[in-house]
């Protein structure tokens, strides 16, 4: 056995006081001891497996959100295999994220996301009724940060949001929401279908916030009237608003000048979009340009306007290099 080679080498021990001691380990381990050691390893491997099944039970069955979170955080780190025991059929780390998400929604009486099993890829995935085959949602593990994963639509590689159990954060990604929901789905589905999916994503964000106290950035999906969507070009050139002024006019909407130099677009009574830097919008003194959506029911976000107003969508997509809503650069490139 290989082990014999190593035991022939003397073990060198460096003592704290600086002296060095060389010990030669007794080479003659008896067969009985060897068997006992082996058995011990098996027992602890089996025990390890049993503990795993207990955690899996917890993940599948618990009705308590905190137990659920506890189960998943342990499972994604769990080393089921040992040198002595290999389990050939296993769920991946990404699968646990997915199961967790399904269970979390289930705990809140929401069964809109269907957890499916792909025989071809040997993995689990989410499907959303109405979007069906156009959405194959899985988690993708973040290689850089422990406990983190992206919720991804596999075919488009759109990373809709990022969640990290160690950092207690959940962040939506405007870029992916735009490419998948605004560009792709806009052509394929009617608004109510996509909106239903968006509301589910928002619900997920709220559950993380309310059940676990996560710091959730709804980004482009934020429905709050106080949400300020920052654009990537901090000092937006006036020409981009000139363009909006022209296309809005053709669409029968007047872009108005606000008293502080901001631009105001009233799309219908009770629905007003404002473009300006934060100082103009009465926020901080920063010169970061932002977009604000104000609707009387606080149900709409920048996403909804992009989806529903052709001239806004075309303008936004034509000027993405300036207008794209900022995302957290630590998690999205």
């Amino acid at each position, binding site marked *: 056995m290989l082990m014999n080679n190593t035991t022939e080498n003397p073990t060198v021990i460096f003592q704290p006081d600086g002296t060095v001691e060389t010990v030669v380990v007794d080479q003659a381990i008896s067969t009985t001891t060897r068997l006992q050691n082996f058995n011990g390893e098996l027992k602890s491997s089996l025990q390890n497996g049993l503990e795993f099944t207990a955690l899996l039970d917890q993940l599948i069955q618990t009705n308590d959100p905190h137990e659920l979170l506890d189960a998943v955080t342990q499972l994604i780190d769990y080393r089921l295999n040992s040198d002595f025991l290999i389990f050939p059929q296993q769920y991946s780390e990404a699968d646990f994220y997915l199961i967790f998400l399904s269970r979390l929604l289930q705990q809140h009486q929401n069964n809109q996301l269907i957890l499916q099993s792909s025989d071809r890829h040997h993995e689990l995935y989410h499907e959303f009724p109405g979007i069906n085959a156009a959405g194959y949602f899985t988690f993708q593990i973040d290689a850089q940060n422990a406990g983190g994963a992206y919720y991804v639509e596999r075919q488009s590689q759109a990373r809709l949001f990022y969640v990290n159990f160690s950092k207690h954060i959940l962040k939506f990604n405007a870029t992916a929401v735009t490419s998948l929901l605004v560009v792709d789905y806009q052509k394929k589905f009617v608004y109510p279908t996509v909106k239903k999916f968006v509301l589910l994503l928002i619900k997920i964000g709220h559950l993380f916030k309310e059940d676990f106290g996560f710091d959730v950035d709804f980004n482009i999906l934020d429905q709050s009237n106080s949400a300020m969507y920052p654009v990537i070009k901090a000092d937006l050139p*006036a*020409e981009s*608003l*000139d*363009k*909006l*002024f*022209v296309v809005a*006019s053709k669409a029968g909407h*007047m*872009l*108005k*000048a606000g008293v502080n130099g901001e*631009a105001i677009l009233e799309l219908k009574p009770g629905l007003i979009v404002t473009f300006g830097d934060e100082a103009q919008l009465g926020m901080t003194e920063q010169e970061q340009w932002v977009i604000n959506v104000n609707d009387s029911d606080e149900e709409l976000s920048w996403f909804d306007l992009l989806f529903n107003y052709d001239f806004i969508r075309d303008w936004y997509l034509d000027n993405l290099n300036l207008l794209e809503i900022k995302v957290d650069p630590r998690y999205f490139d």
Partner: protein
Amino acid sequence: MANNNEFVLSDHDTATTTVVQAVVNKSRYLQTLHQALEEQDDRLVYQLINSEKYAQEIQQARHISADPSNEALVVDLHNQLSAFLSQKLINFLHKNYPFFYFEEIGEGQYQFFFGNWWGRRLFGTLDVLNVSFNFDSSEYRKLARTFELDHQQKRLNTDQIQKISLENDELQELIDTQDQRDQQKAELRAKIKQISQEKVMPWEANRQKEEKQALIDQLTKLTETDELSNNAYQEIRQNENKILELSKEDTLLSYEKQSIVAKFGDFKNFEEQNEILYRDYIAHLIATRGQVNADE
């Protein structure tokens, strides 16, 4: 003892009477103005600060034989008077010219914008003492032209936008045909090379030379086109900016036109109204005299 050499001087009593009369006159003028200001009688203030204009414009008002020279007494107060008179005037203008937005740029000094839309144009300054607009002549001309073009169903910049768009189409064509030109150039080079290597009889040398030159000329022409094409992207971008600028102006003008049509029906009525603004305003002051307090 009378000195016979002394010139005859005017009578001191007369001089006293004259100067006292003049001072009383000025003093009365200032007193009247003072009272008019205290009583918020804007009409009277207008009359006092420019009696000639008042007499000319307000024909139905009886001619007052006030001394215009008194008005010089308050010339250095024009900014303050303008500030005083602006409040009622701007209120009046808000109702009659709802599309003008006034901004104070100094004591008694106002400029105004046309409209409340994005990129609205600075349209002129307000002369409060004369109750008139000093329109920015270039902006005003553009608006007038917009109304003229209305009959042709055109906007101010329609032709220019069309011209630049056409130019962009041509530039795009240059870019799109690059491959084609590259191929043609390769063929020409091959032919030139072939001709150069051909051995011909001396009497054919001239013809061969001409043939070669013709090919070289074609090649040069294509290379020149390539150069144009290289700059095409940048030119297209610049042209797009120009088009944006022009479209924006057209949009602004269309909003301005709509505003005038909504309030005055047409441009002619708007101009006529501007002509009689002073008269109109004084008439308004007379009509609303007494309800001033109720108004505010």
